[in-house]
C-alpha cells in the first residue's frame, strides 16, 4: 500500500504528470481539450489520442489504450460519408452510441478514469462532453482444461484470466436471474474489477453482507491475484488452514453457489474464491458427484485415511521406533532394526532430513522450467531413493515412510489444505521425537482444538462434524446418492429443503423418504 501512495504522491509533487482535477469540465474548444488530455496522459506511450476531422467538417478526438479496444467498427463509422449539416454531431453521437454500451461524461477526470479502464473515449468538437464506448477487446488465453484440478469425468473447461469469460462460464451453467454478480473495483493503482457472485435466496443475506463489508473495507494499492483478497478478508491469518477455497473449475463454483456459498471473481486471475470453506469441503473433489456413489464413498474413505497418514505417519513412525517399539510385531521389528543398523543419525533427525529433502524436491520441481523438471526428479529419485540407502546414511523404512507421506499429502483434493497438513507435520515430528506417542497425542489434540474453534465467515470450520449437524454429516461420511435428497448445509444456506423434492425422486416407492 505504501508503494502505491509513494508513486501517486511523487506525481503530484513534481507536478509533471498531474491528472487534471476530477471536477474540471470538458472544454468545448478542440485544442484546449486535446492539450488537456495530452497533459493527463503525458509519457503514456500506449495511450493513443487520435485527432480526426469527421466528414471534413468537425474535429473528433479518440482516446484509448492501444491494443485493448476494438477500433475497427468505429473507424468504419468515422470514415463513412455523411451529409454535412447542423445536426451532424448529434447524428454522429447516435451512430456511435448504437455501436456498444456507452455513457456520456462531462469532466476530464471521468474521461481519464474510463480510458485507463480500457474503454474508448470520443470527444466531438463543441459538445463539451465525451462519449465513453465499451468496446474492450482483450487478448485472452483460450478456455483450457484446468491444470491444478483435474477430473477424470467432468467438464474440461477452466477459468481464464478474463473476468468476463469467467462470469460467462458460470452463467452458462446457471441460467437464473437469481444468480447475482455485483461488481466492485479495488486497488488505488490497479483498479482491478472484481465480481461478488451468489444465488439470491439461497445464500444467507447476512453472509453476503459480511462479504460486501469485508471487501469494501479493503484499501490497497493493487490487487494482482485472488490471493491478495483471500488474505485480506479471511477470519484468521495465524493458521495453516485455508478458510477460503479457490478453484479453477466453473462446475465447482456453481456447485458452491447452489449450496449457498459466495464466489469472488477477480480480473486477471483464473482462481475464483469460494467462501465460506469448511474443513470437510476441502476434502471433496469436483468429481465426487459425477461418478457412482458407492465408488466415490470408498474414495472418500481412502482420502480420509490418507489425510491422517499425511499428518501423522512420520511422527507415529518416530514415536514408535524411539519410544514404543513393542507396538511393532516382532518380525517387522527385526527387519526394521536390520535396516536401521549402521545408520548414523537418530530416527528423528533422519526423518526430518528426508522430509526436508522431499519438500525441497517438491519446491524445486514446481519452480524449475519444464525441461529441467525431469532432471530434478531423476536426481531426487537417485539421491534419495537409492544412493542414500545404499550408502547407509538413511534407512530404507524412513524412505518408505517419507515417500508414503508425500504421496498421501497430494491426495488432498484442495492443494492449499494439503499444505496445512504438510506444515503441521513438522511440529508433530518434534513432539513425537521428544515425548513419543504422548507428545503426538497432545499435538493432535492441539490441532483439533484449533480446528473446532476456527471459523470461516461465521461458519464453524469443522462443521458438520463439530458442531454436529446430522443431516449434513451424511455428506461428509459417505457420498450420498442424489435421490436421497441431500440437504443444504444448514449453516451456510437459509433454505431448509432438500436439493431434490422428496416426491420427485426417481424411486417412487421411496416416496417421502428423507434423511
Amino acid at each position, binding site marked *: 500500500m505504501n508503494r502505491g501512495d509513494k508513486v501517486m504522491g511523487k506525481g503530484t509533487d513534481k507536478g509533471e504528470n498531474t491528472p487534471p482535477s476530477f471536477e474540471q469540465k470538458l472544454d468545448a474548444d478542440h485544442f484546449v481539450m486535446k492539450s488537456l488530455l495530452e497533459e493527463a496522459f503525458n509519457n503514456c506511450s500506449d495511450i493513443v489520442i487520435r485527432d480526426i476531422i469527421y466528414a471534413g467538417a468537425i474535429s473528433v478526438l479518440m482516446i484509448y489504450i492501444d491494443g485493448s479496444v476494438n477500433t475497427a467498427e468505429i473507424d468504419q463509422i468515422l470514415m463513412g460519408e455523411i451529409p454535412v449539416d447542423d445536426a451532424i454531431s448529434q447524428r454522429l453521437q447516435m451512430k456511435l452510441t448504437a455501436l456498444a454500451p456507452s455513457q456520456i461524461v462531462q469532466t476530464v477526470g471521468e474521461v481519464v478514469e474510463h480510458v485507463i479502464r480500457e474503454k474508448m473515449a470520443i470527444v466531438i468538437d463543441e459538445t463539451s462532453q465525451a462519449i465513453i464506448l465499451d468496446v474492450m477487446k482483450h487478448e485472452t488465453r483460450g478456455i483450457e482444461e484446468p491444470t491444478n484440478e483435474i477430473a477424470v469425468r467432468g467438464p474440461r473447461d477452466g477459468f481464464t484470466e478474463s473476468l468476463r469469460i469467467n462470469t460467462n462460464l458460470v452463467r452458462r451453467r446457471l441460467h437464473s436471474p437469481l444468480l447475482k454478480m455485483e461488481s466492485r473495483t479495488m486497488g488505488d493503482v490497479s483498479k482491478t474489477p472484481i465480481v461478488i457472485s451468489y444465488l439470491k435466496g439461497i445464500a444467507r443475506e447476512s453472509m453476503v453482507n459480511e462479504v460486501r463489508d469485508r471487501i469494501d473495507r479493503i484499501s490497497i494499492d493493487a490487487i494482482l491475484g485472488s490471493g491478495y483478497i483471500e488474505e485480506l478478508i479471511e477470519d484468521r491469518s495465524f493458521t495453516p488452514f485455508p478458510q477460503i477455497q479457490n478453484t479453477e473449475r466453473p462446475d465447482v463454483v456453481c456447485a458452491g453457489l447452489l449450496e449457498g456459498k459466495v464466489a469472488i471473481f477477480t480480473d486477471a486471475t483464473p482462481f475464483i474464491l469460494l467462501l465460506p470453506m469448511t474443513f470437510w469441503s476441502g476434502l471433496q473433489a469436483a468429481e465426487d458427484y459425477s461418478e457412482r456413489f458407492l465408488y466415490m464413498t470408498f474414495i472418500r474413505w481412502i482420502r480420509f485415511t490418507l489425510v491422517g497418514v499425511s499428518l501423522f505417519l512420520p511422527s507415529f513412525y518416530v514415536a514408535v521406533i524411539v*519410544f*514404543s517399539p*513393542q*507396538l511393532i*510385531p*516382532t*518380525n517387522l521389528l527385526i527387519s526394521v532394526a536390520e535396516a536401521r543398523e549402521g545408520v548414523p543419525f537418530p530416527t528423528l533427525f533422519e526423518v526430518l532430513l528426508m522430509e526436508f529433502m522431499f519438500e525441497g524436491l517438491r519446491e524445486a520441481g514446481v519452480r524449475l522450467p519444464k525441461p529441467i523438471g525431469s532432471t530434478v526428479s531423476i536426481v531426487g529419485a537417485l539421491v534419495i531413493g537409492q544412493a542414500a540407502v545404499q550408502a547407509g546414511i538413511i534407512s530404507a523404512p524412513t524412505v518408505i515412510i517419507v515417500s508414503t507421506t508425500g504421496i498421501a499429502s497430494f491426495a488432498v483434493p484442495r492443494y492449499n489444505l494439503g499444505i496445512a497438513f504438510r506444515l503441521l507435520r513438522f511440529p508433530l515430528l518434534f513432539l513425537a521425537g521428544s*515425548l*513419543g*506417542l*504422548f*507428545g503426538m*497425542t*497432545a499435538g493432535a*489434540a*492441539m490441532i*483439533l*482444538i*484449533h480446528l*473446532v*474453534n476456527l471459523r470461516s465467515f461465521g461458519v*464453524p470450520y*469443522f462443521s458438520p*462434524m*463439530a*458442531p*454436529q449437524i*446430522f443431516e449434513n454429516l451424511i455428506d461428509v461420511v459417505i457420498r450420498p446418492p442424489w435421490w436421497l435428497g441431500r440437504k443444504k448445509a444448514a449453516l451456510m444456506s437459509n433454505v431448509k429443503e432438500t436439493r431434490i423434492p422428496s416426491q420427485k425422486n426417481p424411486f417412487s416407492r421411496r416416496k417421502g423418504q428423507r434423511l
Partner: protein
Amino acid sequence: MKGAFNISNSQIFWLLVSMEIGMATLLTITMAVQVAKQDAWISTLLGSAVAILLTFFYVKLAMRYPGKTIIQFSQDILGMWLGKIIVIPYFVTWYSVFGAILRQVVDFIYLSLFTATPVWIITVVILVVVAYMTYVGGIESIARCAEVIGPIIVVMLIIIFILSIQDLHAKRLLPIYADTGWWLITKGAIPSMTFLSESSILMVLLAFLSTQEKAMSSSLWAMVVSMVILLDTIMMVIMIFGTLAEKMWYPLEQLVRYIYVMEFVQNVDSIFVILFLLSGFVKLAMYLFVASYSTAQWFGFQSWRTVMWVVLGIGYIITILFKNIDVATVEYPSQFWIPYVFPICFIAIPFILLLVDVIRRGIRIKT
C-alpha cells in the same frame, strides 16, 4: 457473562460420555472387584442404575432454572447468602478433583509410556492442552472437541472388545451371588455409583444449552451408554482375568495388552493410553472450565478466563501435594470422594435445593 456460550444436545451427550467412560473404566473396576469379586458386574449395574436415577434429579433440578448454573439458582432458591454458602462444597470438590484427575492421568501416562522423563514435563504438556482447549472457546470449544473425541473413544473401545472376544471364558463369572451375597454386591456398587454421579456437573453445563427440550433424554442416554460400556468392560475383565483383576492397577489396560490377533496386533496398550489421554483432556478441561466459570460467578467477576489461571495453579499444586500414585488413585476416591463428596455434593445439596424449590413453588401457587 450470560448467554456467552451455546451448546447443543448432542454435545451434552458426547461431553458426558467422554467424561464418564475414561475414568470409570480405568479406576472403578479394581475397587469393585476387590469387594464383590466375580459379581462386580452386578454391583456396577446397580451402581450405574443409581447414578442414572441421580442424573434424572440433577437434570430436573437444573431444568427448573433454565439458563442458570447451580451457583445462580441456589441463590434464587435459598437467598443470596445461604445460596452462596451452600455451593462452597462444590468448589472444594471441583478444585480438588481437577488436581486429582490430573495426577491420575499423569500417573497413568507415566506408568504406561515413560520411564525417565520428568513427571512435571508430562503435567505441563497436559496443562497446556487443557488450558488451550478451555481458554480459546470455553465450554463450546470443549464440547466440540468432545464431539470428535467421544465417537473415537467409543469406536476404539468397541474394537478392543471385539478383538478380545476370543479370550473370554464365561465360566469365570460363576458362581453368581453364591460367593458374595447382597451386602458385598451393594458395597461393590459404590465406586461405579460415585464415579458416574459426576454427571452432577450437568447442574452447571445445562445452563449453556441452547434448546432445553431434549436435555433430559440426551443426558440420560449418555448415562445409559456409559453404563453399557462400563458394564461391558467389567464383564470382559472378569471373563478374562477372573478375580485376578483386584490386584491390577488398570485392568482395562491389561486387557488391551492381552489382545493378540494374527501375530500382528499385539501390545497395543500404548494406543489405549492415547484413548484414555483424550478422554482425560476433555474431562480436565470441563472441570477447569466449570471451576473457573463458577468461581467467577460466585465472586461476581466479569472474566472467568482470568480465574482460569488461578485454578490451573491450584490444580498443579494439588497434583504435587499427592505423595504418590496411591494417594491420588486410591485414597482420594476412597477417603474423600466416597465418604464426603458423594453424600454431600451429589445427594444432599441437590436434594435440599430441589425440595426447597418444590415447597417454595407450591406455597407460591397456593397464595
